[in-house]
């Protein structure tokens, strides 16, 4: 979050937004504000509500309740004014048209578009302008969708899982371009289910789970909060009841006959386990990024049949439900 001395306007504002699909609550009371110029990652598992959130943000889907604002206006109005560019998930290549024709067409619909060659350059398509889109590879077609989002030179760029079909090199080039575009003062919101990607490329990470914001802050802050160690051992038939009450333990997960404890103080936890004689096959390891993410989104509680032992993040002290950094 560099250089934030100048007060900026709000690019994106969600307040009390919900959205159901039949009996399924996809978004359950979402509050989120993104200032102009921020680069924000929307991080969550599949089905956490990321795409629904993005669709409401773009005016493709009306919220069930609450309000969504883009630059203080209705999303549809901001879209019509050409302030928004987006790369949607699952867009397939448009047949019988060349890259340059398509990007030129999209650019022309915006009031202050980017030069077509510049958009192609930024998206890594400089050499493919004359190629037909339906004859490109999957990764190249994905870059076309990025170019479509960029073409209008929008103030807000929304990217729904933008790197899904890219290989490592293309991924690196993509993020390089995205940061270049952010440096021009534009606001960027991208969704991902990789914490690492969010951490590397966003000023701020908003973690959503079950349609709610469960954490909001810089990458370092999110990792700190989700951090700690992982202590595991063989249960050998012992009961799991007392485990969640041990010192330092923040979450308990049982996988087969093995217990995995997340702890904020591994020394204290191990000492207590020794007291209970539960040290067969004991291992202590630092919680990795993926573990942190699973902890944040409470995924362990979903996958574990003995779920009563696994706590949701909001239940324990390490992870306050929401804190803005």
């Amino acid at each position, binding site marked *: 979050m560099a250089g934030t001395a100048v007060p900026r306007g709000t690019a994106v504002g969600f307040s009390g937004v919900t959205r159901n699909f039949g009996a399924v609550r996809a978004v359950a009371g979402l509050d989120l504000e993104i200032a102009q110029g921020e680069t924000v990652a929307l991080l969550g598992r599949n089905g956490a509500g990321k795409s629904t959130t993005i669709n409401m943000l773009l005016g*493709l889907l009306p919220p069930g309740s609450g309000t969504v604002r883009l630059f203080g206006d209705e999303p549809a109005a901001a879209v019509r004014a*050409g302030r928004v560019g987006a790369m949607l998930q699952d*867009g397939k290549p448009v047949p*019988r048209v060349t890259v340059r024709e398509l990007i030129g067409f999209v650019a022309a*619909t915006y*009031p202050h578009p980017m030069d077509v060659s510049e958009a192609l350059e930024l998206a890594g398509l400089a050499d493919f302008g004359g190629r037909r889109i339906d004859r490109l590879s999957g990764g190249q077609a994905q870059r076309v969708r990025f170019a479509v989002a960029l073409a209008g030179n929008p103030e807000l760029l929304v990217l729904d899982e933008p790197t899904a079909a890219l290989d490592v090199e293309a991924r690196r080039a993509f993020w390089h371009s995205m940061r270049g575009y952010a440096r021009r003062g534009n606001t960027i919101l991208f969704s991902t289910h990789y914490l690492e990607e969010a951490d590397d490329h966003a000023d701020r990470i908003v973690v959503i789970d079950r349609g709610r914001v469960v954490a909001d802050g810089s990458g370092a802050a999110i990792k700190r909060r989700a951090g700690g160690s992982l202590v595991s051992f063989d249960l050998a038939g012992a009961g799991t009841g007392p485990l969640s009450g041990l010192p330092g333990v923040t979450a308990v997960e049982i996988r087969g006959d093995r217990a995995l404890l997340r702890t904020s103080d591994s020394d204290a936890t191990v000492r207590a386990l020794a007291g209970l004689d539960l040290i067969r096959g004991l291992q202590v390891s630092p919680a990795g990024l993926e573990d942190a993410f699973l902890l944040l989104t409470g995924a362990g509680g979903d996958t574990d049949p003995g779920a009563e032992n696994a706590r949701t993040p909001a239940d324990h002290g390490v992870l306050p439900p929401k804190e803005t950094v």
Partner: protein
Amino acid sequence: MLDYLRLEVRRTLRDKSFVIFGIGMPVLMYLLFTTLGAGSGGAPMEWRVSAMVGLAAYAGLGAAIGVGNGLAEDRSLGWLRQLRITPLGPVQVVVGRGLTGTVTVLPAVGAVLLVGALVNGVRLAAWQWAALVVLLWLGTAPFTLLGLGNGYRLSSQTTGLVNTGCLLLLSVVGGLWFPADAFPGWLRALSSWTPANRFADLGLSVTRGGAPGLTTVAVLAAWLAVFGGYAVYAYRRAARSV
């Protein structure tokens, strides 16, 4: 919107199946119908003229209704959704699509008329040629709307089938392939109320040196309203999910 029209016309003309089935097929059928079994002197001029109008109408109808195929394809690709987040308004998209149908009708109709004039020696006054093109062009409006309705309402694959089905049914019953005069009485009566039959009659009346009858125009206007209503309904339904 003009840019959108240009883009879509380009895409349609690059579609091989449109060029083969939309433009080539009616021409081929016209040549077959007017040479096969026609005897040594060839088909009588009257048949060459009416078959020309019938098959030009068939070509126009096919191009117009076919606009729905491209629409359904774009819907399934997510391209219509992508268009919704450009400053292009939804109405501009629909109208642009409709106009695309209207533009691509021209080469299809023109090809049959050209073959009529150059190969089959059909001779008409300059005003008749001009009126023929204009009427066969404007008269496709109901079919464009029908195609759009199907394109918004149905999946990509179903749209192709349903549009082809509509095209064949309307063309045969409407007497575009074989003149309705040869139909049994009940079918002839039914035929004269169908949109394709009245559409071809726009052109036939010109080749006879007259203006289209009031009934013809009224029947077509009614079909325009019906298919227009259907297109609006289908569009509204689809707008919720696109």
